[in-house]
């Protein structure tokens, strides 16, 4: 367990571990706090649908979060949200972007198989929910292009 979980900055965030990639929404500055620098591990951007709800104005993605050891493929982690979020990892075999991939073992939805490794597109994140996207498909914080499979 990683307590506190690594987060994009000192603000308020809600995060999810999605197949080995951590995506966070929020970014409300913490009131009464002198903020430190943002964590450089995260790619962040404004959320496209922020005006439609109060889930959060920013999206951040950590494509290479911390794991208990170097064998990332054998860990499945989750974020326990709350004011003091924790990242809890357990041994499991569910699909992860850290699994080797080939034609017989495709990557999880939203990742592509490159040189036998799943790769999450390093695009600028912009979505949290599927409904944020014109394509109705938000994967790892990025809207899948309309018409894409």
């Amino acid at each position, binding site marked *: 367990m990683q307590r506190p979980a690594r987060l994009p*900055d000192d603000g308020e965030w809600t995060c999810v571990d999605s197949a080995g990639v951590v995506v966070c929404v929020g970014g409300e500055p913490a009131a*009464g706090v002198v903020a430190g620098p943002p964590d450089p591990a995260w790619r962040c951007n404004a959320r496209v649908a922020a005006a439609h709800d109060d889930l959060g104005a920013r999206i951040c993605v950590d494509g290479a979060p911390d794991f208990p050891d170097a064998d990332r493929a054998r860990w499945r982690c989750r974020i326990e949200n709350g004011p003091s979020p924790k990242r809890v990892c357990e041994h499991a075999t569910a699909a992860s972007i850290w699994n080797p991939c080939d034609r017989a073992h495709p990557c999880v939805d939203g990742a592509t198989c490159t040189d036998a490794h799943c790769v999450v597109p390093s695009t600028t994140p912009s979505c949290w929910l599927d409904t944020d996207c014109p394509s109705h498909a938000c994967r790892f914080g990025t809207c899948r292009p309309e018409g894409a499979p």
Partner: protein
Amino acid sequence: MSLLSHPSPPAKRGGGRGEGAAIFLVLTLALLSACHHAPPTCPGGPLFTLDAPAAPVGFDASFTIAATPVCSAANAGTITWTQLSGPRARDVSPTADGLSLHARTPSLPDALGAPAPWGVVPFSPRTRAELVFEATWRDGRGHEERHEARVAAAPRSRGLASTAVGTRIFLGPFGAAWRLESRPPNATATLVEQSGLASLAPDVTGDWRVVDGAGRALTLRTARYDETPLDCARSGCHPAESRAVAASPMTTVLARGIVPAAQTAGAPATFGAAYPDCALACHATGEPGCADGGFTDVMTSLGLASLGARAWADVPRPLRRLGGVGCLACHGPGALPETSARWAILRTDVCATCHDAPPRYGHVAAWRSTSMARADRDPRTRAGTCARCHTTAGVLASNAHRLSPPQIEPMGLTCVACHMPHDPGSGMAVAARSAVCFGCHSPGAGEPVTASAAPLWLGRGGVEPATGAPLTGAAPHSRVEGGCVGCHRAGPSDLQRGAEHAFVARRDDCGRCHAPKPDDDVRARALALWARTQPRDVGAGPPHASSSRFDLATPRGRAAWDLALVVEDPAADAHNAPYARQLLAAAEKVFNPGGAP
């Protein structure tokens, strides 16, 4: 007395092998050190450390502070103990070797010094019997080393219904027969009696409902500091307040102080490279020694024994969120209290958790000496128009920019009546200096003549009785730097900081600008004329508390107004004697048309 637990001189030990030989060696080294006139040191650190109880020890309870030598060089000197601050400790007894100090904390009634109020009893460093001791090591050759240790009887308390898990609270008053009506699921803590008061140390987050013997209930909302969201600005709740406090010196106190000097680029860190952990109680959020999710509790959970030397950017995120005097440091970590319990946030007790630690921090002690601290003691002052200036809630309500919960208990005119912790742009500053005083010390047109220091000081506010035209005069003191507090800045001399909150203006200070002047009789003349012209109000308290109303449409009404301005300012001659005389002369011209007294 030696620092290494050897109360007897070495010569009496025989100087042979074993323990005595060790002592002899130590003393030899000490003598060599003295010959070279170099201060004794231990490699890389102090000669000795102090170990005091980190958690509160209770009232009327014994405690021990122990000094531990770090290296043999410490043996060259002896330790003496001094109490630096706090109420006098009882049964103080240093051990013969000087390495320990045994003592007892004061009793709860002695520490409070006043009846415990209803509800959560506030505790400042003073009233929680925070005792600061200094151990001074001296070698008799001019070298000395000092360390401080503090012991407290109880955790500090803001007196709010928003409380922290793991932090004991006390419920007043004595004999209130509190009982615990409900508590959160999985809670095991219960009410106990400590020092004559009901006491509770909440062990889980949630609502704890307590009821006193008369059936009056209070819901204590408890949480951990590190688990309370800081999204105060979200959804338009408190965006202006959140923006304002971002630049507050209280918010930034830790960040400003922690930056290693090498990185400050012209803004030297307050405390240099090594931040003193003893300052964290007031420069961060939470109560040291309590498992409350506060700064020091989280620091410990992260495996940090001390903040040490690190830049703000290198402080772990959970600590940055608790570093500084943030929202929760004043409002508490719990959920918003019930409506009936919100008034307590107005009390000086909130600020007193840090600013009532005389003699070092004497802001509250100085304030308590003022009439402002007793402004609402008389129940009549808490009603009607009087409340506007006699109660903190009234002062806040009269300012359109400030919201206030309705005041329930008397509390005087507290810190927040003048200081505006949430006002955009002002932070904790007192906005526009004198303007904050004018709200109550300057009667408005058409109102009863109330405290009138401002009109006198500024030389305006009077009315020509004959014509109704403004009656103005010179205002020599309006140029005093700092305005009101340029003169009203003195207080008890034994307070190191905050004494100016006694707001005393010393006549001696007048000599800074001009030679002493003889006492003026203007106020005595004004009071005599007032007694003659307003006889029914004499003896009924200050004129503004009387039924007097002046018809400013008539010469007599205008003359009475001018007279009341002088009568309402007990320091009229000091604020502006020429203008006071001018006002009095205008009134006398109407009331004494023939010039007779």
